[in-house]
């Protein structure tokens, strides 16, 4: 297998690679994204080191925003073309959390970001500190 070079993407790269619509975070497009994570389970997002990562999720409710803020996630992408409600957008804006929506499925979204160099959270954290 050819190795894909690992690199940080910007929020703008994520937006383009996922052909995403952006609802919150227009002013933060040059923000670096250090890792990616994907989950449809809230408690999963709170396990492990998801801080500074972009979260891809099939969920579309206000709890996703609150869970992301608690977890320290830096941007949220709703997959499969899910449209956030006004309540979700307001909540994301309140917390300064960029919110996007992509027409791609979860699998395709992850693949597109991975193939451009973005990695999962496990490579962001040294193994020793990962346990906690």
């Amino acid at each position, binding site marked *: 297998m050819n190795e894909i070079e690992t690199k940080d993407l910007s929020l703008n790269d994520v937006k383009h690679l996922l052909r995403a619509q952006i609802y919150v975070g227009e002013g933060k497009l040059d923000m670096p994204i250090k890792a990616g994570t994907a989950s*449809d*389970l*809230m*408690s*999963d997002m*709170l*396990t492990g080191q998801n*801080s500074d990562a972009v979260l891809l*999720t099939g*969920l579309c*409710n*206000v*709890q*996703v925003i*609150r*869970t992301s*803020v*608690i*977890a*320290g996630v830096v941007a949220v992408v709703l997959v499969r073309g899910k449209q956030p409600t006004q309540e979700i957008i307001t909540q994301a804006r309140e*917390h300064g959390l960029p919110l996007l929506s992509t027409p791609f499925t979860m699998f395709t979204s992850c693949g597109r970001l991975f193939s451009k160099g973005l990695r999962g959270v496990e490579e962001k954290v040294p193994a020793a500190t990962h346990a*906690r």
Partner: protein
Amino acid sequence: MPALTKTFFIKARDFAKAGESSLQIQSILKSIGFTSDLIRRISICAYEAEMNVVMHGGNGELLLTVNPEDIVLDVNDDGPGIEDVELALREGYSTATPEYREMGFGAGMGLPNIKKNTDSLEIDSHNGRGVHLKMSFKVEDS
């Protein structure tokens, strides 16, 4: 004398507000200026406990106490309580309804997450008389 205490009220099944208290706690701790790892652990525990009260418990309250040497979260609710605490602490154990699972809850990871992120944890529950969680976090000099 404790440096700071603050009480938050939690309403059962109020998903419009669920998690707000924990977000406030996170921002209070950030403004005091603890290490990001400590803030992360406390915020996660507060949130998991708050969501449990909203989903499984009754009405309740969350008390934040910031002492010089430790930070304590006391969470009480007047719901049905936990029948078997040891079982509830197991990864994957959940009584969440399909409705809650659809929202993304019910992995059965909340209490194990709390266990992992606290320096000490006490769970007190009597069937029919709610749950009391006492979670403590050591403040290490940075």
